[in-house]
């Protein structure tokens, strides 16, 4: 009994000490003060130095909290009980949040730096006139391949993935929209297709890909491809850039049949308490010099034209990540398909995953 009591007492004392230490650290960072801005972003999706600079410039203390998927983030904001001032959802999530009335309108008059954004990234289908969202980063979906391992393939067509020579040598990203989109695109259909026959055809085509698929994975796909675990993979361009930075044998291409172009935009959720500060933060991130530094840290493609001009030629001139407008015109943004259709896409994707060779 005494031993047990000892254990509990030491746990309590230790917790009290740790709580006190946390309190002191929080106080020294200013988190307990009044003038704060809570940012809800993907992990490691901003240069931390920029946050410190923003705090210095404005006197606002930034509280940074992270999420790992759009859907989980939306659930949190929908349920309330939190005070997020800024979030960074992707395109389809923005249109869904708008529909569910989870976003506050953004006052463009408070964003003098908005003029730096390339007009082709403004006024997109998921948010006309950018009433609720401001571009942060963008990219595409395509094929990463290892020049040493794939032979003559250059993956200018999705259909090259079906080559029997690539047996058990392809990794797919674990996303229903991405994989179904690839199936639809490879047949010449739109990746937002709602036609049941087309969808079934795409699933049958995907089932034929099964022998080539080594695994369907998440973020670890970067590590696997950089490690030459497979010859090719279907990935987002941001991930591709990181892998290529690690492994020089890798190359990235967006197949000619078309593919997805995606956007992560800054929004102000309805949970916001510091709306003024949120605008200040968005404007700060739009500053060309700041945006350029952030782009160098994060490694994704920036929609900020003035920032792009400041970046070195080997980044800004890379056609794989900054394709010419005539190429991006062929790419499609994911439409918000509605819950029922999205659910159907996921069922089909699940059936594909369950399909055994």
């Amino acid at each position, binding site marked *: 009994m005494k031993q047990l009591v000892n254990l509990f007492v030491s746990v309590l004392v230790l917790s009290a000490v740790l709580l006190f230490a946390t309190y002191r*650290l929080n106080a020294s960072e200013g988190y307990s003060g009044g003038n704060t801005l809570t940012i809800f972003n*993907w992990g490691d999706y901003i240069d931390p130095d920029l946050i410190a600079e923003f705090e210095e410039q404005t006197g606002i203390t930034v509280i940074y909290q992270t999420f*790992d998927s759009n859907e989980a983030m939306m659930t*949190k904001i929908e349920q309330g009980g939190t005070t997020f001032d800024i979030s960074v959802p992707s395109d389809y999530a923005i249109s869904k949040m708008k529909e569910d009335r989870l976003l506050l309108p953004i006052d463009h008059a408070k964003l003098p730096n908005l003029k730096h954004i390339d007009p082709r990234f403004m006024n997109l289908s998921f948010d006309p006139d950018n009433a609720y969202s401001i571009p942060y980063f963008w990219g595409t979906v395509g094929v990463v391949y290892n020049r040493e391992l794939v032979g003559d393939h250059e993956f200018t067509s999705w259909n090259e993935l079906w080559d029997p020579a690539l047996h058990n040598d392809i990794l797919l990203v674990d996303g229903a929209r991405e994989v179904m989109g690839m199936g639809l695109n490879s047949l010449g259909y739109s990746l937002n297709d709602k036609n049941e026959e087309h969808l079934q055809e795409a699933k049958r085509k995907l089932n034929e890909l099964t022998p080539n698929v080594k695994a369907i994975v998440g973020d670890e796909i970067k*590590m696997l491809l950089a490690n030459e675990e497979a010859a090719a993979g279907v990935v987002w361009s941001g991930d591709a850039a990181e892998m290529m930075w690690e492994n020089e044998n890798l190359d990235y291409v967006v197949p000619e049949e078309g593919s997805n172009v995606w956007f992560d935009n800054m929004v102000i959720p309805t949970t916001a308490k510091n709306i003024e500060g949120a605008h200040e933060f968005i404007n700060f991130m739009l500053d060309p010099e700041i945006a350029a530094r952030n782009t160098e840290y994060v490694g994704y493609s920036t929609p900020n034209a003035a920032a792009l001009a400041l970046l070195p030629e080997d980044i800004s001139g890379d056609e794989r990540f900054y394709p010419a407008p005539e190429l991006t015109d062929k790419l499609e943004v994911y439409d918000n398909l509605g819950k029922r259709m999205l659910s159907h896409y996921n069922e089909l994707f699940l059936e594909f995953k369950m399909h055994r060779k």
Partner: protein
Amino acid sequence: MGRNNLWSKLYLACVFLVLYSPIAYLVFYSFNSGGTMHGFEGVTLDWYKEVFQDTRLLIIVLNTLVIALLSAAISTIFGIAGALAIHRIRRYRRKNALLSLNNVLIVSPDVIIGASFLILFTIAGIQLGFTSVLLSHIAFSVPIVVLMILPKLQEMSPTLIDAARDLGANNWNVLSKVVIPFIKPGIFAGFFMALTYSLDDFAVTFFVTGNGYTTLSVEIYSRARQGISLSINALSTLIFLVTIVLVVGYYFINRRNGGKRARLGVPTQ
């Protein structure tokens, strides 16, 4: 016996080797100047420096520890009460019904627990943060504590209690002098399992946290999209080393004290 002994040592060595190999892997790459968990380039201590410069990360570590320790201790107390309560129920059906309910949280995937707790907390109007995270960690750790203690109670012979009563012990005495000492190994097992649950949990914490309060798992998972930096490896290495020191230290201090008491004739059990 000598040969038997050797085989058993060899077997245990293999088990420990496998258990610690991924950790050795993480520790090894925490010194990699190459920046990734493959292709070792050179030795560096930069990642460790980065850990100590990142105050936000340190706060997260402290949060994680406080939650783990407190939730494990409190859920152990609830678990003891639960196990005793279930044990005393004589009706077979009722006992099984309670046990099934007990296990619901173990079988439910974390996302469901997280989502339903989130709804509960928002209905109850509890601000998301420290309190909500602590409450949920206690909640999902209780069943494993019960599961660890129950078999000990079932082993306990009822004659032990009867004997104590015959000697004039009241309810509290029976509990504190007979029952609790007997089930102590189960209680410890429960406490450490609760600690494990709490430290490992990502999904539930993610849903019920808010207002800048974050634990280490949530932070690590959300960094996966951008690639986990080796400073996380460095941090895990440090935590691991501190844990080992604490565990070994705790064991030997406890043993020394226990030894003394034993010599003085006070039973340690």
